[in-house]
């Protein structure tokens, strides 16, 4: 029995249970913190009735979700209506299997990795699972047999398909820089130092890719300013208008779970995963149980920081209009990330892809080039019809005008 428990398979099974449990709790408390942060930003108190400082609020909410009547409206496609939240929930949690939570642990003289599964193609696995999440939204919206839900689903689909491209390009930049797809192999090179001081985190090599990846992850998770799928003023509740009780709760939990997955991926790709400089426990050499706990806390801290920024943005930025959203993806982010990608390939050819001087310089060049192209093309940013009369007298291509009007 102990032999089984100390093998990689046993550790993986235990870890799967532990991580799933922790994440359930984390997701519930994400909702609490979202409300608290909203309250701080808007100068309110936020939830403070249940338990000290409202800390038991998620339990009360959960109880309410479970006990409420689960309405299935008569006009829906029942099978898909029930299937949609399940898909959303499963997909949101399956992605965690490939995240490296805490390096390696020494058990009975052997090293086991604190990771449920370590596939050769870890990064692609997470991308593949994340790309399936779209079905939950689409089926939820369609099966509701409701115009608003369908509009929400259509918006979400178009948005997720569009933002997957710059996201994939940003990830490719890192894959090219590190030369690995297994997530552990992406973390390990980041634990080294430049001149013994600055950790070799990828964010210092490609800060722009980091920012763009963060933006696309907001869009993939349907967070403000990209939450058009559930724009309350226009679409009631978007794709989950017809859902109630626990099914609505599953959509809600899945949104936060996918935010946590995105944050974990961001931490692994750019922020060194479980690595923290100068702390002996958070180094790859430390393999004791204390070290693993410290590493998991470091990872959790990085995820929490990213989540906080996401929530902060939600209460700071207004929502995009749909054409602005599409323009940002296709006209802005995709050419820009393509530029970064070409830059990285070029640096790789000259073997300069690991040198911060070259990558940062290249980043600056790409940024300046993009801004120059954007400035010279004098393209209207908002695309509002009101700004169109100013275009008169200029020779316009058909395509641009068509894009502005639609």
């Amino acid at each position, binding site marked *: 029995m102990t032999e089984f428990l100390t093998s990689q398979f046993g550790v993986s099974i235990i870890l799967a249970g532990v991580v799933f449990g922790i994440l359930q709790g984390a997701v519930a408390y994400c909702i609490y913190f979202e409300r608290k942060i909203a309250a701080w930003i808007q100068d309110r108190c936020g939830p403070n009735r249940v338990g000290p400082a409202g800390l038991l609020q998620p339990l009360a909410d959960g109880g309410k979700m479970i006990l409420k009547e689960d309405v299935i409206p008569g006009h829906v*496609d029942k099978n*898909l209506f029930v299937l949609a939240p399940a898909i959303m929930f499963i997909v949101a949690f399956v992605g965690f299997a490939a995240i490296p939570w805490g390096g390696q642990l020494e058990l009975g003289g052997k090293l086991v990795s604190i990771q449920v599964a370590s*596939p*050769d*193609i870890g990064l*692609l*696995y997470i*991308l*593949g699972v994340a*790309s*399936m999440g*779209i*079905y939950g939204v*689409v*089926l939820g919206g*369609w099966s509701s*047999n409701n115009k608003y839900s*369908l509009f929400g*689903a*259509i918006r979400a*689909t*178009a948005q997720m*398909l569009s933002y*997957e491209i710059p996201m994939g390009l940003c990830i490719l930049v890192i894959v090219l820089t590190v*030369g*690995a*797809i*297994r997530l552990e*192999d992406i973390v390990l090179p980041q634990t080294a130092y430049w001149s013994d001081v600055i950790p070799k985190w990828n964010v210092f090599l490609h800060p722009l890719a980091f920012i763009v990846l963060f933006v696309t992850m907001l869009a993939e998770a349907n967070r403000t300013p990209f939450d058009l799928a559930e724009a309350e003023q226009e679409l009631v509740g978007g794709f989950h208008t017809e859902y109630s009780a626990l099914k609505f709760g599953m959509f809600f939990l899945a949104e936060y779970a996918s935010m946590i997955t995105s944050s974990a991926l961001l931490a692994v790709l750019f922020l060194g995963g479980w690595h923290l400089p100068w702390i002996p426990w958070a180094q790859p050499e430390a393999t004791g149980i204390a070290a693993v706990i410290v590493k998991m806390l470091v990872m959790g801290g990085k995820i929490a920081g990213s989540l906080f920024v996401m929530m902060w943005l939600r209460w700071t930025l207004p929502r995009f209009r749909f054409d602005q959203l599409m323009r940002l993806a296709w006209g802005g982010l995709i050419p820009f990330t393509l530029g970064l990608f070409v830059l990285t390939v070029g640096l790789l050819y000259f073997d300069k892809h690991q040198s911060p001087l070259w990558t940062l310089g290249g980043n600056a060049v790409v940024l300046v080039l993009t801004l120059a192209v954007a400035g010279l093309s004098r393209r209207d940013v908002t695309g509002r*019809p009101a700004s*169109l009369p100013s275009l*008169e007298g200029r020779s*316009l291509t*058909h*395509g641009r*005008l*068509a894009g502005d*009007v639609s």
Partner: protein
Amino acid sequence: MTPSTGYLLYLLFAMGGAGLYLLLPQPGKSRALPGVALSVLALAGLLSVLAVKVIAPSDTSAYFCLFSAIAIFGASRVITHRKPVYSALYFVLVVISVAALLVLQRAEFLAVALIIVYAGAIIVTYLFVIMLAQQSHETVYDTRAREPFFAVLVGFVLMAAITGKAVEPATTSEAKIVTAQFAQQNLAGAIEGLPEGNTADVAAALLTKYIVVLEIAGVLLLVSMVGAVALSRKKIPVEGHGLPTRPLGQIGKEVEPF
């Protein structure tokens, strides 16, 4: 493989074809029960023949049978279901179970690429179109198959021929697989400094042996992209081009062609 196994396989394919023919949506009374019975019998028979006679038993045989059965079930539902949205979803099921089969063959990269490209992007676009086209009404053209008899005949004869050919000389095809694996290993090993692993193998094969094919595929995609952009551009007249002008606010409100 003995000739009797071959005839058994052909018999099973004939059974499966008949079952699927009965299952295809057609006007008139439902013939689902005999169809399901025939198809399930044929599928079970096929898998047991494959498991006993053709494939060398291994740890993953059970998984192979399970995922193949799911894939075949999903594929038959794609063409027999009366609602297009469900058909598209069963297509997703087929893609996922085929990806599982690829994982069993240790081709993880192909498996995930299949899911990302097909399940994650292409079928979503199908679903998008289907969703926009209809919403929970059954239409006439969805409830009857077009030329079901000939479709089933051609499909199953082709499949039986391929299967019969593929499993016929078991020893030589095994030898070929082993040679192919060796060739691939050499390909990856020949390039210095390449990391080990599935992705590296695929990359080595694509960028050395199959580079021309890869380039042609890339050019083809570029051509189709240019074509799509050219087709989707709407021509809107602009002042000074000799075309009738309209106030900008009214674009899209007029029905007359221009």
